[in-house]
């Protein structure tokens, strides 16, 4: 108890970090989605270098958190998945960036 209190005194902004975004693969996905309007699954897979299953799993978690919107459609006879950040996701990413900056600013030299 005393230990955790001491930690929060050292770096008060640490607890504010969004753990869903903080995971490296999801952070990469969020960063890629943040700079564009929308992408399809294939493009995101090529850009992030994640495997099909890994990417799919992380996208499910982000979708469950309400950070991304997944639209499934057919182009001809082929299934096609388009992804884009929701307003909530965009705000969460901005807040994550701010909180991370705050963490690094709070770091003692």
């Amino acid at each position, binding site marked *: 108890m005393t230990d955790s209190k001491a*930690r929060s005194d050292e*770096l008060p902004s640490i607890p504010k970090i969004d753990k869903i975004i903080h995971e490296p693969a999801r952070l990469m996905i969020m960063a890629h989605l943040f700079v564009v309007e929308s992408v*399809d699954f294939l493009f995101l897979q090529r*850009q992030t270098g994640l495997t099909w299953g890994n990417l799919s799993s992380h996208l499910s978690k982000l979708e469950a958190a309400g950070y991304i919107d997944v639209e499934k459609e057919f182009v001809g006879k082929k299934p096609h998945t388009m992804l884009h950040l929701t307003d909530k996701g965009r705000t969460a990413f901005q807040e994550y960036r701010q909180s991370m900056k705050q963490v690094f600013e709070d*770091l003692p030299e």
Partner: protein
Amino acid sequence: MVIKMARNINLRMTGKINLKEIERKAWMSYFEDGLWDIFMGLLMLTTGIRSLTDNVWFTLGIFAALLISVIGKKLITIPRIGRVKFGPARKVKQKKLAAVLIVSVLATLALLLLPHSGLALPKISISPINGYLDCGGLRPAGILHGFRAPVRIWLVVCDIRGALGTVRQPHRPNSAHGFRNCHSAHRAGLVDPFPAQVSPTRR
């Protein structure tokens, strides 16, 4: 321990998160297919062939090159690399580029077609290059070079001097091809195909 962990994150994060770089990388991935290089190659090839012949139809090669790159992008590249819609900043850049390209294409077409229209054109034409080139077929190449500012300024000076009669275009009396090309430029009122000093063979 927490501080150490945060420092590690800092080192890792600063090395990885660069949003501009991510956007640029995504944009550049669309040009890794080589279609842009093929387009530029065909454009240069068409321009080169056009400079050797007076046949206007070779100009259509530019549109063929454009068609190949558009169809190739749609049918070959996009199904393999995936689709992406870029953000508003990139869209503004794309619109500016499209506007410049449209103006360039229209200006090029106007410059190619005006000498064949039969209109009495002024001595100083729209293109500063026109007055100095003695071959009509070289105009597309000249226009491409003309986009380079120092060359353009130099050509403006040459064009004004040519219009004032202080610069004579090189005349090739033994070359029928050269004479024909000079004739098209003469129709535009830009080149004098019969200089003051006529060679004894022509006389």
